[in-house]
């Protein structure tokens, strides 16, 4: 395309991020068709507003912000958003006790977590897709797109501490989900001591 954007760098900076924007759109919309529409609209808006972007800065964050804003305009997620925020705001008093539970549950059979690599990619994506919205957003932006906490906080319009909290909880949920799947499928032997469900509350 000719795409004579204001400074001519749209092709060099924005278009290479198409895969990343599509992945983020998928995590928001949870539907391939809607994600495609969202991705297309994101690039159209970015193109029209290219003069507001400072070349050489954080292009991925800028595009993600456009994507999310457009999504929120179209989707009514307020109720779910409030529910999850309230949930995430509850600090886990047993944070450290819970933190290692999947590791401890698995280490008798697979201490280095080799079973993670034997879980098919589609199952990993399914488990991510089934995370509650706010956990899925931070896991996607951090683990898939490798953005720093500060940029994630700006995109999602939440404090950095909230990013950390949601990331911690989202990863833990994801691990529990995938560990249970691995046990069910025989990818990892059932421990004599636990399932993930048992491991969720070691105090009981």
């Amino acid at each position, binding site marked *: *395309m*000719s*795409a*004579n954007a204001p400074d001519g760098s749209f092709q060099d900076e924005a*278009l290479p991020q*198409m*895969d990343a*924007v*599509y*992945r983020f759109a*998928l995590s928001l919309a949870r539907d391939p068709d809607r994600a*495609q529409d969202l*991705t*297309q609209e994101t*690039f*159209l808006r970015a*193109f*029209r507003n290219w003069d507001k972007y400072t070349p050489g800065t954080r292009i991925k964050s800028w595009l993600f912000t456009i994507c999310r804003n457009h999504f929120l305009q179209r989707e009514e997620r307020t109720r779910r958003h409030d529910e999850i925020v309230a949930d995430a705001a509850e600090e886990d008093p047993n*944070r*450290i*006790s819970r*933190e*290692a*539970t999947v*590791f*401890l*549950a*698995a*280490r*008798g059979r697979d*201490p*280095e*977590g*080799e079973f*993670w*690599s034997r*879980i098919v*990619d*589609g199952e*990993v*994506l399914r488990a*991510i897709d089934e995370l509650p919205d706010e956990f899925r957003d931070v*896991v996607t932006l*951090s*683990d*898939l797109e490798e953005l*720093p*906490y500060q940029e994630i906080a700006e995109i999602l319009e939440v404090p950095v501490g909230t990013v*950390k909290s949601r*990331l*911690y909880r989202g*990863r833990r949920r*994801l*691990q529990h989900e*995938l560990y249970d799947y691995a046990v069910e499928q025989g990818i990892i032997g059932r421990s004599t*001591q*636990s399932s993930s469900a048992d491991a969720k509350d*070691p*105090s009981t």
Partner: protein
Amino acid sequence: MTWTDELRRLLRRRKGQPRNDEPGGISCEEAAERLFEWLDNELDPNMEERVGTHLETCARCYPWLVFEQSFREAVSRAAQHHDVPPELRDRIIASLEEDEGMSSS
């Protein structure tokens, strides 16, 4: 010893009592609290070095580090399957060209 006893033993609180004989000069609990931030490169250089030294040399924490790294790699690998479909890429390019034509006409 049950695994819950083991968990309590492994994670017993020693906060505020860093010991020089512990790797990196920090306790296992402190290292555990910063494990994700260390993996995410979110710590300042001094803390990053201390936590890294602990995680990579502590006999109890190192297996957990390897476990978490394996998990992270699996998630990252799975993400590569969600590249944008070729037809969408073509459609976006076409829509930008159309928009450009409209704005310049």
